[in-house]
């Protein structure tokens, strides 16, 4: 939550709202990779890429 609040503050003060989708996308990808390396979701990741 703290991260989201800080990130929103950052986008607001820097007026860089267009960064949001990129960061969200990267974080999702990041989580998928971490998750995939230790669970059955690995097959899903391989299908995606």
């Amino acid at each position, binding site marked *: 939550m703290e991260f989201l609040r*800080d990130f929103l503050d950052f986008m607001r003060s820097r007026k*860089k709202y267009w960064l949001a989708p990129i960061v969200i996308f990267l974080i999702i990808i990041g989580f998928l990779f971490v998750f995939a390396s230790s669970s059955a979701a690995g097959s899903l990741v391989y299908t995606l890429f």
Partner: protein
Amino acid sequence: MIILGLSGLYHDSAAALIINGKIIAAAQEERFSRIKYDNKFPKHAIQFCLKNANVSLSQIDAVCFYDKPFIKFERIIESHIAIVPRGLLSFISSMPIWIKEKIFFKKLIKEKFRELGKIDWQKTKLLFSEHHLSHAASSYFVSNFSESAIIVLDGVGEWATTSIFHGVENNIEVKKEIHFPHSIGLLYSAFTYYLGFKVNSGEYKLMGLAPYGNIDSPETQLFIKKIKTDLVWIKSDGSYQLNMDYYKFVSGNRMCKEKKWERLFNLKKRFPDSKINQSHCNLAMAIQEVTKELIINLAREAKRITNSNSLCLAGGVALNCVVNGELERLEIFDNIFVQPASGDAGGALGAALVTDKIYFKLFSKITFSPYLGPEFSNEYIESTLKKLGANYEKSKDVTKLAAKEIYNQKVVGWFQGKSEFGPRALGNRSILGDPRSKTMQSKINLKIKFREDFRPFAPSVLKEYASSYFKIKKESPFMLFVYPLLDQLTGSRIIGDIDFQLKNKNCVYPSITHVDNSARVQTVDSNDNPSFYKLIHEFGNLSNCYMVVNTSFNVRGEPIVNSPFDAFRCFMETEMDVLVIGDYVLKKELQPKWTKRKKIELD
């Protein structure tokens, strides 16, 4: 008010502690971890600072990190988008560490602090200062100027690579910035890379190589012309622009496009530890000349904007003491101050000062000494020496004894008091020798520090005698300005290849002067470092030479020694003759057998 400043996670992590406006302690993580330019979270440095001040984590009012990770992330994303589809591989390789931890930096810091002890983040503020503001503060607030122009020059922080600030009392206002990828630091690093040295650590070798070049040779002049027409465009307002067609640091993992550079200079990229020829020296001189021009232009612009009589320099490029010396001689400003920990380690001190002066608006006069690191009692030193089975003698006057050994052409390891903050050994963690000796430079370089023979050593000279040897008008307590030796102490410049020049220096003090008869001078004041002052004075009484060779107490590839154990190990693994550590004196021939460690790594 207890404030802890932190730097790191890129390179050269450090911590600095300020209590009620007084700088209590500061240290680089590398000194404890023994990894040069260690970039990990500075947990040992924090522990040292807190222990030194006898405060606990829970008592800290604010922790300030020296840059803003979100803005850095923004820069990485934007600069990669600007060159799409190039740079895809570099983007993919840099993202995991960001997604994994750096973007969640606040969380990371809190986790790291949890490993150190209990801290209440409701009470303790966690702040982030801008990278160049931290650098600016690290110099301006310790300079004792109440008003000053400030120039920050480094590779890159968040976006800014070059900044002009104006400091007035407790305020620092940004006046002008040049943004990534246009950067003097990265330009210099590109040449460091091209000439076969390691980026982020070999820049000072490039600076040391430059004087072997011949400024009058047509090749050097051609190199200068090509750099200015193809690699960097210098503007009349002090700004500049890199021609990105020649660089690869945004889109790849290399500094420059070697093939294009080879075509431009008609010179092959030099590989590490391969032979250095005259063209390499000429190219080093060319980039040094261009860097000098860039910085002088910026200084003139800073003067125009601020109309100040004083200048503070900070950032890694401010360690280019050849340029600093030239700036002083030009007298654009009456006073120039450079803080000894000018690189990223100093950012920790800067972040703490930004918090103290700008965030909390505390008005206290800061007194600065570079001796901010760990200190060891005689009891501790003796118990360490006993454990190591060393043969030692206790002396009531180690300065006299050390001076006599130096006079007898011995190389002395000198370990006293608190260690220095920053890359320079200023007389507390130093290797000392006789500056009059013709062989001392070679002996210390090859047999003690195991480093390249071409690299010169610096003199530490008593303040009141400095002008008897050098063309110097002001103090230089931190060894950050280069001055020429007096004309009567030098002969004409020797022309020839690097080995010939090195072996045929034409001056009275060959061990401390470069081939161009210049030296990176440290002036020693009796109030700043009484025991070091006394040692040089004793040596002067014997030799009538009131200066010594002073180089950092370490070997190639290792950080400066931190503890008595590090000092003893360095002493035993090199051909150093004598070690003076606290009140104890150790002679090499009396020591037990010592097993040598692994091969020295390149730095």
